[in-house]
Each structure stands twice: as C-alpha cells, then as structure tokens.
C-alpha cells in the first residue's frame, strides 16, 4: 500500500492569530475535521509542453479555503483542519476512504475518477458522511447515479455545453461542425454537446472523429484544412478533453471559422482571466499561496470547503444532518466571485453557478445571460433542470 498521507495543521497559524484575539475567542469551540482525497490520474501524453503537470490540483484550493474558514473561525471559535490523502490511480481509493471514515472524518472532498466516486458515494451514504465531488463532470453522477450524501461542486459537462450553446444562440452562430476525439471522455463531452445543441436549436452540419495518431505539431498545417472541408458552418466545435489535437485546429481550418469547445473558446468554472466581482482578490490570494493560477478543480475545492465553513458558521454545529439541511435550505448562499449567490439544486445536489467562457487571454462572456429566463432562477438554464433530471433525492 503506497500512499502519501500528509496532515496539514493550521494550529500554529491559528495560535498566533488567536493570541491577538484571545479576549474574543468563544468559550465553546468547535473542531471541524475535513479530508481531501486525491486519486492520482495518469497524465495524458502532452501535446504541448507549455502547461506544467500539477501535483497539487484541487488541494491548493482546499488549503486556501481552510485558511479562510479559520480566519472566520477565530471570531466564532470554530477550528478547521484538513487532512490530505493521495492515492495512486486505481489503487485502494476505497480502502483509503474507509480508513478516513473509521478515523471519524465526516466531511470528505474528493478529487477522484467517476467510477471511484460512485463507490465512495455508497459508503458515504451508509456511514452518513458528506462527500464533495470537485472533479468529475460526468452527467451520470447528477442523474441515475446520484447519491444522497454527495454534493457536486464542479459544473457538469452539460452545464458547460449549455453555456457554449447559449452564447452561440445569442451570436446566431447556429451551424456547428463537430470534431471529436475517440476516447471515453470525448464521447461524454460529445453527448453533452449534442444535448445542448438540441436544447438550444443548434444544427450539427458535420460530425467527424479525429483518429489520426501522428504528431499534430508536424502535420497540422497539412492535415487539418483537408479534414475540415465539407458543409459550411458557423463554428467548429471540438471535443478533445485531454488536449491531444484540439489546440491545432485554430487557424488551420479550411474556412475562416472560430473554434469553441474543449479548445479555443472554452467553458470553465474558473479561469485566470476572470477578474470581475472581486475575483482579482481570489486570484491574487491563490497565486501567492500556490505559485500558479487557479484551475476548475482548485476553485471547486475552495468552494467545497467554504460551503462546509459557511454551514458550520451559520448553524454553529458540526453535525452532518444540520450542516446538510442548512446547505440545501433557502438560507444557504455561497459567495464565489461570480456576481451571484451560489446555491445547491435540491434535486441532485449540484451547485448552481455561472460558467465563464474564456480565451487564453480574455474572459469573453459569463453565462447564463439574464435573457435566458427560468421560473426559478436563470442559473437553472444550465445543465439538468428538475424536470429533466432522473435523480430524485
């Protein structure tokens, strides 16, 4: 059993701060123990060497949020600790989770693959543990495989695809040329894209699978113009989740058309170009701590730990039942630097949130626009709405 177990303690940090505030510390202090479980995914072959391989995605967001919670905690007498557990891909993620459960952890933030999350959800439900999904975007987890004690913080593929489709509808760029990769994740994203296309009246005029297996760096100029010939279209939609070829489509297409999807204009929960609604402060704090920019998993992990903190602060309780009840209630609202309050969908426990559509150097738009009407909240125009979801919790 090879695993890295690192306990991150904020006691010294807290003690120093508390010394200044000793007169303020409430007599009845509460301890909140949280765990961050990472299943180390195998790295895809890099198309480009521009992006460093991250060993701390997600957990950095959780660490920052734990600090934030503890700053609040010094005024309320609440104390948060985060235990970090890394498990190699495919090895004993379940047994490691069971160990956390046995050690009494009731709040677990999970950055694991979809198949693992399904197994953890069942254990969480049986043991009354709250599990926070911060990385799996699979729609299945929000539908037939939803689970009572699992909260989804990261937006689903369907929420992201709907954001793209909404902007395309607004631009009237309704004819799509779809280029998809061949692996399982690409098929899943393609499914979400097709669902959104049908939902918002987009037309797929061409659909092609990219299965060239040579190095795109050498052949992009020759191959892609030929590959993208065919019916006329408004935008080229690419489904290449791992980033094996998508970056080379822009400026190499036969027709002069923009590229959107997993490359080009991309839907994101967070992006380094996002700076509205106080996001600059968040970007700075994160960069100062991690030495790199925040990504979707970091942001989702930050939100997960902040959601726990918010519920504990308001209920003044660490009991799972009370925290969960509060999170799903009307009183719960989380500030996530996106200009609106973030709340949970009661039917599948997905966090409602706007999606950023970004280019490498600019945030193009934040969706949904308020013109997309909904009887409950315009945020529910993204992803599986209550009547569409097959999840009933």
């Amino acid at each position, binding site marked *: 059993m090879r695993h890295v177990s690192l306990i991150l303690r904020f006691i010294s940090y807290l003690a120093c701060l508390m010394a200044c505030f000793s007169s*303020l510390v409430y007599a009845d202090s509460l301890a909140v123990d949280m765990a961050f479980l990472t299943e180390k995914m195998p790295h895809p072959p890099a198309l480009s060497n521009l992006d460093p391989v991250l060993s701390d995605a997600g957990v950095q967001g959780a660490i920052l949020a734990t600090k934030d919670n503890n*700053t609040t905690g010094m*005024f*309320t007498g609440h104390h948060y600790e985060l235990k970090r557990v890394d498990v190699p891909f495919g090895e004993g993620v379940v047994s490691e989770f069971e160990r956390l459960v046995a050690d009494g952890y009731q709040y677990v933030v999970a950055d694991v693959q979809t198949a693992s999350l399904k197994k953890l959800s069942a254990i969480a439900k049986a043991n009354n543990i709250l599990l926070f999904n911060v990385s799996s975007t699979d729609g299945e987890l929000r539908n037939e495989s939803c689970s009572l004690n699992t909260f989804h913080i990261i937006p689903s593929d369907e929420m992201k695809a709907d954001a793209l489709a909404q902007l395309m509808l607004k631009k009237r760029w309704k004819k799509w040329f779809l280029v998809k990769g061949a692996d399982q994740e690409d098929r899943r994203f393609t499914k979400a894209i097709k669902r959104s296309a049908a939902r918002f009246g987009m037309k797929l005029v061409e659909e092609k699978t990219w299965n060239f297996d040579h190095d795109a760096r050498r052949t992009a100029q020759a191959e892609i113009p030929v590959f993208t010939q065919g019916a006329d279209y408004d935008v080229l939609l690419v489904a290449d989740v791992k980033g094996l070829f998508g970056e080379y489509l822009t400026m190499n297409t036969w027709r002069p058309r923009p590229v959107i999807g997993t490359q080009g204009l991309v839907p994101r929960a967070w992006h380094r170009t996002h700076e509205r609604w*106080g996001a600059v402060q968040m970007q700075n704090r994160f960069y100062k701590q991690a030495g790199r920019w925040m990504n979707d998993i970091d942001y989702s992990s930050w939100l997960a730990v902040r959601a726990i903190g918010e519920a504990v602060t308001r209920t003044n309780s660490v009991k799972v039942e009370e925290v969960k009840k509060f999170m799903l209630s009307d009183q719960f*609202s*989380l*500030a996530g630097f996106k200009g609106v*309050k973030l709340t949970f969908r009661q039917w599948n426990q997905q966090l409602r949130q706007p999606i950023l559509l970004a280019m490498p150097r600019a945030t193009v738009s934040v969706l949904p626009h*308020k013109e997309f009407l909904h009887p409950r909240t315009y945020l529910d125009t993204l992803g599986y709405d209550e009547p569409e979801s097959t999840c009933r919790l």
Partner: protein
Amino acid sequence: MNKYVVILLMFFSTLSVADTLYITLEKDNALAVVDGETGKLLKTVPLGQRPRGIAFSKDQTHLYVAASDDDTIQILDATTLKVVGHLPSGDDPELFKIHPNGLWLYVSNEDDNKVTVIDLQKKIAIAEIAVGVEPEGIAIAQDGQWVVNTSETTNMVHWIDPQDQLVKDNTLVDPRPRAAEFSVDGQWLFVSSEIAGSLSRIDVSNKQVSAKLHFKIAGVDDELIQPVGVLAHPNNELLFVALGPANRVAVVDIKTMTVKKYLLVGQRVWNLAFSPDMKRLYTTNGVSNDISIIDVDKLKVTKSVRVGHYPWGIAVKDESGESSSASSLRLEPSKP
C-alpha cells in the same frame, strides 16, 4: 430687460450652493471633475492605477485617492489636483475613511486581511488590525467611538475601538457584506450584503442584528439585486442603498426598514454622495460609465452625466468651503 436677467442670475448664484464632484475612474486611471449643479464634466486628471476610494482631508486642502494597483493612497492638492505625496496604505487599498479627529485614516487591505490605520500628519502606518478575509467597507461613528470594518468572505462586521485600535466585537451578517454606515444619531449601523441581497440594521448598543430587509423588485431577478453603497440622510429617517446590477437606488425608511421607492439609475450603481445643501444625491454607475443625479426632495432622477470608464468613488466639495464625500460624509443631523 438684460438688467433683470443679470439680477435674476445673481439671485440664483447666491441662492444655490455650488459644488464640485471628484469621481475616480477605475479603468481610466483618472479623476473626473464635474460641476454638481449643471452636471457638466469640467476636466479629467490622471491618477495612479485603478483609483477607487476617495475623500477630502478634514480641512479640505487635500484629496486622498486609493490607487489600488499601485498599493498606495495618493495625496492630491485639492486646488491644483497635482499629486503631492503618498500614504503607506498597505497592499491593494480600496475603501477608506477618515476619523472625525481628522488624524487617522482607516483603510482595508483586501489581499492581506487587515485594516491599516495611518497617521495623516506623520504619514506613517500606526496600526495594522487583523480582520476577516477580504476586508471591504469601513464606517466610523460620528462621535468617533467606533470604527467598523466588513469582511466579504468571513461575512462579519468587526468592531474596532479607536482608543487602542483593537477589535472588540464581531457581528455575523449575510453573505458578502460590502458597505457599512452609521445612523446619524449613532444608534444603528447599516450593512449591505451583496450576495444575499439584504440590508442589516445592527443595534450599536448590543452589536446584534435588530432588523433585516430583503430587497425585491418586480421584474428584476433576485440574483441581480446586489446592495453595495449605503448613505444615511442627515434627517435620520432615510437611507439610500445602491443596488449594483439591479440599476436602482433603494430609498429605505430606517425605522420600519421598508423600501419607500426604487429609483432607476445607471448600470451597476456603486457609491453615493450628497450635495452639500442636501438637494442632490449623486451615484456612480460602474458599467454605464456615468453618474446619475437625483433630486433628494422629490426622490426623482433628474440627469445622467457621462464621466469616463468605471466611475467608482465620489467626493463632493462645497465651493463655499465645506466638503462631503461618499467615503467620509459627516453632516450634522438637521434641527427639528
């Protein structure tokens, strides 16, 4: 005939008190100077990067401007509008207020979870106060006994005692508290919560929330109602609350905590300031790049003036010698 016109003009010029507005333009790195009465943009003066909070010194000889991205507060000569010095504000200064003693300036440092207290005479930081995550609004009671700071991510109001510059109490409020404002009689503190869309009224004597108002506007999504700037009328009856992307200013009756009226202004209304004679209310509208002018007696929007990109803070100078500002408005309650 002409003689009468001249006399008439002279009559008006002595009756109405002229005022000049100084508005920071966050994206232009500049200061817009506007005549309050006519709404005319007089000139634009360059400032440091990302200027936000703005206020006059107590004697009105200087203007302080928080240049957030330069990590400093610039000191401007109020007549020449030239930069004559800097204050050690700490990182990313945004909102600040000046204590009624005219000596201490309180500024929130969003990135460092601190409030810095600056001695305006010696131009040095005399205290750094640890507060919650992302400190934002500052309010100071007119009698100078309390300074409060709101922290956006911790969702609290921190009560600072200026005697020893220590936090003495904390009040939990709704998510993302922004501006705070004491009632003119010092009995209440009002705090806007941007994400919750609410206004809390806190009893200063026990530091507890005594009443809460959730804003509702027909035809406007709840998510878009984001209260930010708050300004108390000296009559101790009305409170004006800027509602951000709801593009409205709410006129609140502070006793009943109900909305008397919503006034439609420019887009993403942010900060507020009165004219010295209390006839006009000015609003900075971040997205529509203008200011709105409101007739305070009639509660009607009379004008909007284009001033530049992302107007943020506003300070008002009474050309007869008095001054007020969004950041440091200190007026006496009107006599009954």
